[in-house]
């Protein structure tokens, strides 16, 4: 399968919810290194909102679903992660306007728009030990595979792999952004919770899509 349609997008997000909820405690523990230990709780709340948006089943359009998910996540009172992920999905929605399916160039462009939308909200860039370190490689890998016209499983596998590697790479970095920057060198050795969440999100996309392929 090469094209992502509305039903497969629903399944992809169901995969995301399962993947993130499974890691809730792990994410909170990661956050207690440099933050206040609530990242898992916040992500779980965000997933609850995503589940509500999926269940609402309004107009069966990709852009509408992405917009509802974006607004739902923006509404999570959870520090920085809500506005960042929320703006990512809202930007994806804008880019997906009017499309019945996402494939090839369009699939790449929608995720790239999501990345730009998120980057517009923060000064954090690659190497700052934030979710950007996982998201940038994930979107790059996804876009490259989509443009190479690979099938959906391969596209989301590539993205998941790149996100996981990006999150893993944050272990070697010293936090330079957000709350965790205040612990400086002590942050080295532990993965960034936001980057880890991005890895779980992309692994969830992959699982949601491949389980039903």
């Amino acid at each position, binding site marked *: 399968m090469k094209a992502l349609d509305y039903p497969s997008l629903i399944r992809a997000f169901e995969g995301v919810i399962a993947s993130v909820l499974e890691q809730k405690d792990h994410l*909170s523990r990661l956050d*207690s290194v*440099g*933050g*206040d*230990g*609530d990242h898992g*709780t*916040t992500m779980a*709340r965000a997933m609850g909102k995503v589940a509500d948006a999926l269940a609402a089943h309004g107009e069966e359009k990709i852009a509408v679903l992405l917009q509802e998910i974006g*607004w739902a996540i*923006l*509404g*999570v*009172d*959870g*520090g*920085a*992660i*809500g*506005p*960042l992920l*929320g*703006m990512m999905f809202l930007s994806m929605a804008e880019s997906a306007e009017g499309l019945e399916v996402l494939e090839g160039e369009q699939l790449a462009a929608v995720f790239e728009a999501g990345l730009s939308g998120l980057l517009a*909200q*923060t*000064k954090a860039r690659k190497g700052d030990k934030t979710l950007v370190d996982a998201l940038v490689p994930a979107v790059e890998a996804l876009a490259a595979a989509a443009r190479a016209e690979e099938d959906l499983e391969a596209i989301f596998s590539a993205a998941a792999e790149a996100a996981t590697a990006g999150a893993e790479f944050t272990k070697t970095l010293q936090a330079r*952004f*957000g*709350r*965790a*920057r*205040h*612990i*400086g060198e*002590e942050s080295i050795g532990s993965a960034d919770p936001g980057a880890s969440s991005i890895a779980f999100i992309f692994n969830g996309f992959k699982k949601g899509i491949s389980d039903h392929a």
Partner: protein
Amino acid sequence: MAMKKLINDPDNLVQELLEGFALAHGEQVCLTDDRLVVRAREKEQNKVALVTLGGAGHEPALSGFVGEGMLDISVPGEIFAAPGPPKVLQALKTAQREAGILFIVLNHAGDVLSAKVAGDMAAKEGIRFEQVLTHEDISSAPRTDPDNRRGLVGCLPVIKVAGAAAEAGRSLEECAAIARRMEAGMATLAVAVSGATHPSTGEVIAEIEEGTMVVGMGQHGEAGGGTQPLKTADETAEIMLEALLDDIDAKAGDELFVLLNGAGATTLMELYLVLRRVNALLKERGITLARSLAGEYLTVQEMGGFQMCVGKLDEELKALWDAPCDAPAWTRS
């Protein structure tokens, strides 16, 4: 570790605490259906409104500063987490007026992001506001790197003087200039002597070894300062005041305010000891302690320690400081 807190379902914690807070201070504030804390008696529409946002779990901050002469609306988030942009946008819409809104934001990643997204949306809708960022924590970055300085308890003196200016009918530009002047002349440093638990998760949010203290602790227990052996009240006052005076470049003849903010477990007794020493040290330097406050303003659950905030005052700022206000956690008649 078992958490010794009298709470109910952690998911309802913030809603329940706000309902109780509104009952306790019904003459000053009320809680709206969309979970904003607003004044019990609305300010006249021709005066600038003050809006702020911030996580809960720091009671009485920030909603305790909603009231006459201070904030018009506070947007509480979750425990230690900023409210999402939709709620912040709702607050800006509620406060919308021709006179404009002074939007006070503490420099924390979540608050700043939420404020930016909501602010961009509000601007598109033609809502007139001016944002003032407070970032006065000297332990998180040098003065030359304000982006990376956190906003701690210093938001309160800023809210006090800007709120008084708004109440007096000053323009949005004037209120913003007053807020920025107060902000630019102040500095805060925190010390922690014992940790706290996150009331929703039960996780320890700051571990402080027995017999030590950490200078430069943020308001959620973020690590980042010097761990050192626990000192006396006088010695602690000296270490902190010296660093703060240095940061604001205080000189003989200056008039300062000092605000001591207990983190939750440190007693008023201890704060009084510190304040007494601060006053003596200022005298030695020929600096006047023009205004002072000691109490619990912005807490971190049961954390032990306090924040010391000092700032320069001029005649106008002193008059605004002295103007009457009537908020749950700051009244002056």
